[in-house]
């Protein structure tokens, strides 16, 4: 696995995309914090949508709103946030591929994304139905909550895991 990731990192590092990202992030004044802020605002959109929905399903928040209606209004924000997160994250991975691909915390973050996306997609299909009283729903919501919050926290820890690994 590490060999594959190492090979991937090397091929990214040899690509024009890497050169472009490195140039932009290094030469456009303020670009790194601006792009990171976009990433954070997209995270805020996730918080205000899927996280709020999970809390609603668990009966913890927004008692005055109907679940199907709330889902319909909020879920689009989740799906729009995702490409924004990818696009704002990509420049950094392209500019320093080894830093990310060799970092287990980044791997954990991406690994958590898979079940999180599957859950969100499933909930999106079940929640808008007026009669959705599926017994599994609160469990899905609880798991979704833990996963998404875990992903956000893992994102911040990437920088700290760096210090545990010598030489990059």
């Amino acid at each position, binding site marked *: 696995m590490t060999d594959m990731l190492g090979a991937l990192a090397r091929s990214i590092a040899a690509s024009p995309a890497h050169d472009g990202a490195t140039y932009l992030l290094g030469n456009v004044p303020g670009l790194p914090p601006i792009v990171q802020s976009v990433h954070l605002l997209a995270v*805020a*959109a996730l918080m205000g949508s899927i*996280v*709020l929905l999970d809390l609603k399903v668990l009966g913890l928040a927004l008692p005055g*709103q109907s679940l199907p209606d709330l889902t319909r*209004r909020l879920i689009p924000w989740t799906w729009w946030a995702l490409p924004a997160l990818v696009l704002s994250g990509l420049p950094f991975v392209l500019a320093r591929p080894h830093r990310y691909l060799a970092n287990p915390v980044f791997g954990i973050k991406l690994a958590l994304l898979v079940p999180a996306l599957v859950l969100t997609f499933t909930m999106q299909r079940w929640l808008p139905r007026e009669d959705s009283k599926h017994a599994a729903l609160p469990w899905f919501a609880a798991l979704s909550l833990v996963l998404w*919050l875990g992903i956000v926290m893992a994102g911040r820890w990437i920088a*700290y895991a760096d210090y545990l690994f010598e030489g990059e």
Partner: protein
Amino acid sequence: MPFTDFWMAMETWPLSMRIGESAWFPLLESLHVVGATFVVGSILMIDLRLLRLAGREHALSRMMRDVVPWTWGAFILAAVTGLGLFITRASAYVENRAFQIKVLLLLLAGVNMLLLHRVTLRERERLDSGESRSTAAQMAGACSLVVWIGVIVAGRWVGHLS
């Protein structure tokens, strides 16, 4: 910078050193991000409703009553964790231009929140109906959005200025 001795002394408190030299720092920082992004995300719903860009069929007062307690909870999480982070390098943070702007924006956000509460109380029925405009409410909504986004951007910039 006034109180320099005080800020520097803060950094030597046992609590400050405990946080600064352990995994507590990354833990507090990630919880800080969770809290701050939740504040902005939840306020977004309210602000869009104030600007009558979304959710007009829902009573504003009900929406606020449902959401604001959670926003407050997230804000308290962000504030407490923020304090924990601050004390580890207090003297550096107070000199950091981005941090100063962030604190200023937080104060503005607080003032805006108070004004918002007054406006929504005074014009409750008009705002709930979603039919009529209230310039004060719209301005409060727009300001809130701009200021809170500013807090996030300034917060990110703190780490980029030494």
